[in-house]
């Protein structure tokens, strides 16, 4: 298995699901590696464990992806398993899932909501409309092509709408990033694309997936 030629960018099998495919994230910057954290303390790691297991997401569903976000909170996929409850006010939310199309008229509000959230905060861009305007990027005059023009995005989840499993895959990738959050350490701001361009899209792979595909 190990010596079969791997397509570029795929991960060796057995890596934890949350880690980003090498192709999508830039080379690790020097200050970012585990043992080079200057203020690495056990308590910081424990605080990160707390943050990872209790990400309250902002109730912010605009379009079709909003319905998939509700389904992800519903009985079958249940984001509450991961400790994520929807909060109505940005003050009590750590994570903003921008689910759906953001038009120019709405863009300013997205920025205000992000500013009202309390640090440490993360942004997940769910769906192609939020990533890059999606099906409306070419012919629509009123749709903002990508919310990263207004707010810093941590995780991009492609799909129109992405399945709840893809959303949870994105959340697991975000949890991997939150696990590395150090209060005084340097935050990695590089955006990460779930199921990036070179890895096959989607998080649940048909049985006859190519050998190199992520498990």
């Amino acid at each position, binding site marked *: 298995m190990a010596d079969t030629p791997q397509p570029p960018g795929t991960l060796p099998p057995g890596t934890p699901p949350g880690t980003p495919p090498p192709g999508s994230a830039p080379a690790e910057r020097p200050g970012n590696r585990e043992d080079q954290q200057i203020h690495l303390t056990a308590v910081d790691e424990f605080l990160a464990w707390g943050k990872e297991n209790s990400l309250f997401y*902002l*109730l*912010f*569903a*605009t*379009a*079709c992806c*909003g*319905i*998939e976000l*509700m*389904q992800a909170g*519903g*009985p*079958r996929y249940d984001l509450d398993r991961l400790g994520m409850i929807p909060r*109505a006010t940005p003050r009590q939310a750590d994570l903003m899932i921008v689910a*759906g*199309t953001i*038009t120019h*008229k*709405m863009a300013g*509000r997205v920025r205000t*909501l992000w500013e009202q959230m309390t640090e440490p905060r993360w942004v997940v861009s769910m769906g192609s409309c939020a990533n890059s305007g999606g*099906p*409306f990027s*070419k*012919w*629509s*005059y*009123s*749709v903002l092509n990508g919310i990263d023009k207004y707010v810093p995005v941590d995780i991009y989840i492609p799909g*129109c*709408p992405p*399945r709840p499993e893809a959303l949870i895959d994105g959340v697991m990738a975000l949890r991997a990033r939150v696990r590395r959050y150090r209060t005084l350490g340097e935050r990695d701001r590089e955006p990460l694309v779930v199921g990036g361009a070179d890895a096959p899209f989607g998080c649940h792979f048909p049985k006859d997936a190519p050998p190199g595909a992520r498990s």
Partner: protein
Amino acid sequence: MTVEATTPSGERMTLNMGPQHPATHGVLRIVVESDGEIVASCTPDHGYLHRSIEKIGECVEWPMVVPYTDRVDYVCAMNANLAYCVAVEKLLNTDPAAAVQVPLRAECIRVLVAELNRISSHMVAVGAMAMDTGAVTPFLHGIAQRELVNDIFEKLCGQRLTYNYVTVGGVAFDLYPDAAAEIARFLDQFEIEMRRFNKLITANAIFRDRCAGVAAVSAAEAIAWGLVGPNLRASGVDYDVRRDDPYGIYERLQVRVPVGQGFAGRRGKVGDCYDRFVVRLLEVQESVRLCRAALAMLPPPADGKPADPVGGFQADVKKLLLRPPKGEVHCRTESARGEMGYYLVSDGTKVPYRVRVRTGSFSAAGIFHHVMRGIFLADVVAVIGSFDVVVPEIDR
């Protein structure tokens, strides 16, 4: 309990509900003038999800518009597809040379998926209204049922929410082998589940008192303000496009139309929030009956020949669809939120000249200003829920 529009304490406070507000379904913003508890006046503000579907309709070819109709009403996307495809077929039929005959099996599949999607759309509508009045559990039970419908649709056309399944001249794929059995199983367990759902929330005294007599819309008002669908029928107007202006094979299925009769009893009025809630639940029962009728009428598949007039699932429209005849057509179908009217203008080229879609939520949003005067702040939320407003249908 009539409360005059000017609040008793006199001084006004402007509250801004939305565009990100737990109760407004999506990005609907309402500026409320109130003294804190009683609403003096409210002005909705739209356009936060205006994706210009109608302008896109003038840039893409005829069959490419279908995926965008999914995104006009993503809660009930099958009906949205069906509305556009029936309109284009009617446009093609105006010229006898380009007439299109949809196979019987495709018509049955269309009714089947449209009614199933109406069920799952009403479950979200009814659940969201219950959540607006504070009961979270019915919403999650509603979503659980919606998941089962999503499974069926996923096997059918690969997508859970925006299906792009109904195409001009038929449907994209035939039913998978045990689709009929699976749908029948779903319908049986769904009826049992609905009884429990109704005991939990519909017959609940607190919920009934919360919605009884709130924002009652008389029949004349509903017609004048252009309400359609469940909102119109709850006000006592007995009109349903599937029965009174039938398309496809709806005239062969006896469509029974539930009408609002002041279900809330002593304190309720015809056309109040509770009536709209109950009419949707009665419509869900009708849809279950229609699904079973469509399953019974389903002819066996014509193995191999998609365009077979009886067993096929797709009429042969490839060359016809390239250039529909020049002219205009107005066509209406009954979506979950009422009459979805398409006005198509074709100039004989591959690209539509004008695609106009009139949706039920647009006129429902129009009546907010008229209806939400003198009610409580908590009722503003219940009224929005009762009109079952989906924001992309308003903003398109």
